[in-house]
């Protein structure tokens, strides 16, 4: 089955087309553009270009996989609403996967810290053992991360490398489309029902209930 994968939870806009078979999968095309402020502009043309490169028409796709984050909210929503809209229009199942899991899976064997940039001097983090997540993803200041790993990946790990004090694998910065698809491959093969794409925000909106009114008379 042909699968479209999208992720906008990091500064990269990722679009990929892969084929999932009974016993494996193969990537057909993948495009990635790194610009933290341009997901909204870049993603749709990139989907189009990736499909063209793969020689696939959107109506031939059978499932959509989207990175649910965690990631900076405004960009994250672009990928999710795009995936949801395409899924609704073509009546395709949509599957959400954790963006950090795609990085952790790509990082390979060993104990690995995955960190992406959460802005405001914070990182989204999770620890992986042989590509499988240990515990829940979190958001916190780099200094607050409980480091229990041999190396680190992700653009957050590069940015705060001095704080983590771990060797960095700089080849793994953004979630590869193939890893996103691989994380959902079992569900795709089983023909599992799709799910609403609910973002992993991990933070509450900044909003303060309005205080009592200000006085104007001195």
């Amino acid at each position: 089955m042909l699968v479209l994968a999208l992720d906008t939870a990091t500064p990269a806009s990722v679009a990929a087309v892969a084929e999932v078979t009974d016993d494996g999968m193969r990537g057909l095309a993948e495009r990635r553009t790194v610009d933290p402020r341009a997901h909204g502009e870049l993603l749709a043309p990139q989907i189009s270009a990736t499909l063209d490169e793969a020689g696939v028409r959107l109506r031939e796709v059978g499932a959509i996989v989207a990175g649910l984050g965690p990631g900076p909210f405004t960009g994250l929503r672009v990928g999710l609403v795009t995936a949801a809209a395409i899924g609704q229009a073509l009546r395709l199942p949509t599957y959400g996967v954790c963006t950090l899991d795609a990085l952790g899976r790509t990082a390979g064997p060993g104990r690995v810290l995955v960190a992406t940039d959460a802005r405001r001097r914070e990182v989204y983090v999770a620890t992986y053992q042989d590509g499988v997540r240990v515990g829940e993803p979190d958001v916190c200041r780099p200094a607050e991360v409980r480091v229990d790993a041999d190396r680190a990946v992700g653009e957050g790990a590069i940015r705060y490398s001095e704080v983590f004090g771990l060797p960095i694998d700089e080849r793994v910065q953004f979630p590869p489309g193939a890893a996103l698809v691989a994380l959902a491959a079992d569900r795709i093969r089983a023909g599992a029902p799709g799910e609403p794409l609910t973002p992993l925000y991990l933070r509450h909106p900044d909003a303060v209930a309005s205080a009592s009114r200000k006085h104007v008379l001195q």
Partner: protein
Amino acid sequence: MPDEPLVLGIETSCDETGVGVVRGHTLLADALASSVDQHARFGGVVPEVASRAHLEAMVPTMQRALDEAGVTLADVDAIAVTAGPGLAGALLVGVAAAKGYALAADKPVYGVNHLAAHVAVDTLEHGPLPEPAVALLVSGGHSSLLRVDDLTAGVTPLGATIDDAAGEAFDKVARLLGMGFPGGPAIDRAARDGDAGAIAFPRGLTAPKDLAAHRFDFSFSGLKTAVARWVEARERAGEPVPVSDVAAAFQDAVCDVLTAKAIDACRTHGVRTLVIGGGVAANSRLRVLAEQRAAKAGIRVRVPRPGLCTDNGAMVAALGSRLVAAGVAASPLDLPADSAMSLTTVAVAG
């Protein structure tokens, strides 16, 4: 007419997720999901709360609109979406969704101006707009006077608020008087039992020296402060605050300036049609005063029903329908959301 364009419109510039379907000038569906209740305790729209709500509401609101209209995405000729102005993060949800639907259904997408859409929606009730027209758009987010010569080509801004939007002033005064959010309907209700002449509140930018530089501009910040001072002075003196009178006098001050300047704009530009839109257009005093003054000046007032004055998807679809009918080129797929989109842009060019 079967050859009239069938257009889907998506609106997410503030706290309403709207999807509308229009064929020509005919409204087929207007589905809406509002996050207004989630903002009430903050006394104003919280952008991140609004953006989250748009993402959750997009798919179900789209489904309701398509079902209500009895059409599928494959049937539509184009998808229009508010590209600006508005809250950046909120706009982006609608724009990205529109592109997703456009890609999937292989349809052209039009990124349109929210204010021009407020004008276009009136055609759904009152038919083609006689041009040139003057439009007064008043809501919690905007207070603008525009000249419309050709809605599909561009709109000329004549004036706008230099501080608070009119609807914002209603919200702030309502809070001052212990009423809920949004404040417009609450003030309107309270004002019915009040005496508008009981208190003389200031009319911003109406003095001769202000008119020289700001003939068609508005200012509501001074009025809001004047109301606050008046109410506080009463409270300090231990006297009860006549809430209805304050509401009526405040509402009258706002509507007096809005209608006086709108009629002046029509006269100055030799225009005989005034369109009023935006949430504040639902205000009963504004409607009455506009009718009275326009009648005297020989001007026809067009105000859509309240449900079409506030933000919705139908207005975006209505403008999209005009653009398709006029043969305007669609927007490119890298169309950005533009929170400060200029009025001279009705649709983002391809």
